């Protein structure tokens, strides 16, 4: 009797496991990933302050505002800086990953130091670079020491320069991530391939061009496409350092401010939907391109 009971029929046990093990994760997934998207879609056609019980239906007005009002549209220009910066960042990462895949002394030290900034807290990085860029701060002092004080600028006050300073900070922060991914991909190339190439007399440049580059081409493409959505979702660095002042406001800063500072939840939702749309389209393009490559 006891035996039968403990061996509760495997079929119903199966059902119980499937149900009980997926219940909480699925509830969390629906509540915090899918429901917000659906709600946001509905909010985006309304004018709503976020707490009043009534929402006024305004049709496509919010979307029209985003794409016609220059005040809202200019944030797209700011993303261009971060988009370009991503290329710089990946170039540097690729360079160091290649160098460190050859014979180098103190390899682990260099690898660790170049990667470390990626692990740091965003607020700490933001403050660190406020200190770095402030008048008579780290950068100005360093330029003076090496005799280039003529280059000193109002790094975070001049609207023409501020986005370059902030995008530079972003490169400092994220370069290590690309670097580690590239290095991982390069080190998975079997040693014999290099050895064979050296016997054939291929120099380092040829090794890079014909062995390393092709084998990580896919990862580079993937990262380049992701740079589009990355550039448009920039938030932490400029929000912490400038709060979006002096022409450094990004798409996400504007969305957050509209919702939580100015209580324009309808408009903010429409911006969220636009952002989501861009990210999804970019990701689909990437998946399709990726699929073709592997076929």
């Amino acid at each position, binding site marked *: 009797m006891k035996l039968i009971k403990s061996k509760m029929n495997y079929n119903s046990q199966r059902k119980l496991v499937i149900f009980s093990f997926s219940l909480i994760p699925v509830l*969390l997934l629906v509540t*915090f*990933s899918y*429901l917000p998207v659906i709600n946001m879609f509905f909010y985006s056609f309304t004018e709503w302050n976020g707490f009043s019980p009534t929402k006024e239906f305004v049709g496509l007005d919010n979307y029209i505002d985003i794409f016609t009002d220059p005040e809202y549209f200019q944030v797209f220009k700011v993303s261009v800086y971060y988009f370009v910066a991503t290329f710089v960042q990946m170039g540097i990462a690729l360079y160091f990953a290649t160098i460190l895949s050859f014979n180098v002394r103190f390899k682990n030290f260099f690898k*660790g130091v170049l990667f470390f900034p990626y692990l740091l*807290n*965003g607020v700490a990085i933001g403050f660190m670079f406020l200190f770095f860029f402030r008048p008579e701060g780290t950068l100005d002092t360093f330029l003076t020491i090496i005799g280039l004080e003529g280059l000193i600028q109002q790094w975070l006050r001049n609207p023409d320069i501020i986005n370059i300073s902030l995008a530079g900070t972003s490169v400092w922060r994220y370069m290590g*991530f690309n670097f*580690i991914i590239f290095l991982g991909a390069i080190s998975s190339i079997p040693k014999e391939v290099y050895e064979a190439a050296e016997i054939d007399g291929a120099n380092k440049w040829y090794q890079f061009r014909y062995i390393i580059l092709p084998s990580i081409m896919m990862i580079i493409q993937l990262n380049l496409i992701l740079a589009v959505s990355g550039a448009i979702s920039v938030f932490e660095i400029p929000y912490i350092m400038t709060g979006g002042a002096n022409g450094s406001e990004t798409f996400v800063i504007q969305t*957050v401010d509209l919702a939580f500072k100015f209580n324009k939840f309808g408009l903010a939702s429409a911006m969220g939907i636009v952002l989501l749309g861009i990210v999804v389209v970019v990701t689909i393009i990437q998946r399709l391109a990726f699929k073709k490559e592997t076929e």
Partner: protein
Amino acid sequence: MRGTKANIFTFIKYFSLLLGVFVALLPITVILFASFKTSDEYNSTNPLTPPENWLNFDNFTRAFIEGNMIVGFLNTTVILVLSLIGATLTGSMVAYVLNRFDFKGKKILLGAFLLAVLIPGVTTQVATFQIVNGLGLFNTHWAAIILYMGTDIIAVYIFMQFLNNISVSLDESALLDGASYFTVFRKIILPLLKPAIVTVVIVKGVNIYNDFYTPFLYMPKKDLSVVSTALFKFQGPMGSSWEVICAGIMIVIIPTLIIFLLLQKHIYNGITQGSVK
């Protein structure tokens, strides 16, 4: 001829590496310098001058006490522990179900988890806020804990990838011996997932410790400050005492440095695995 060329290459190689190290470390080093300076010393010296007294911990004390850092570390620890346990349990459970069972609706469930990765959390905050608020979680620890458990699906992926490499025959022989599915999960799957759990804990742990957005938006109450938001609040009241802010920055960085030095290999692996979505 070949010799000089090789020399030039070696020179460029090490020169650029040292330049990289310089750029990576300069912003941090000056913060370290400033954190040990007295207020007068800070005002009279330039950022690149090392402090006179390397044992002046006054700024650190002020940052810890006036800057609410103790509260920040306590809250961060509570949130870290609970959300890591939660994410590991829920993630491994759903990965077990998706990897080991065939059932109606499995494809839809799998698709739902895969598709969710496409939705960057930052885009939907406007609506997520309403839900968190509606559930009465606003200004509680649970806002962060539940969001960290529920919105980042990375744990599910890492576990599923790992389960692919654990042979099903292990489960089967245990089932033949009369073990229940629950026992199989608890006694066989969970222990074998240990390396994957380490990866998840590291990747998610770093993300949670560094996250600013979630606590800033959902837990603005002073008692609920985490490390990030406590440091962020230095801006106003200590705006003129950069030496104290620098001590605050160092306090936030040091735990990361220690973890990095201890777990380097695991961190590199975790980052590489976590990126392959």
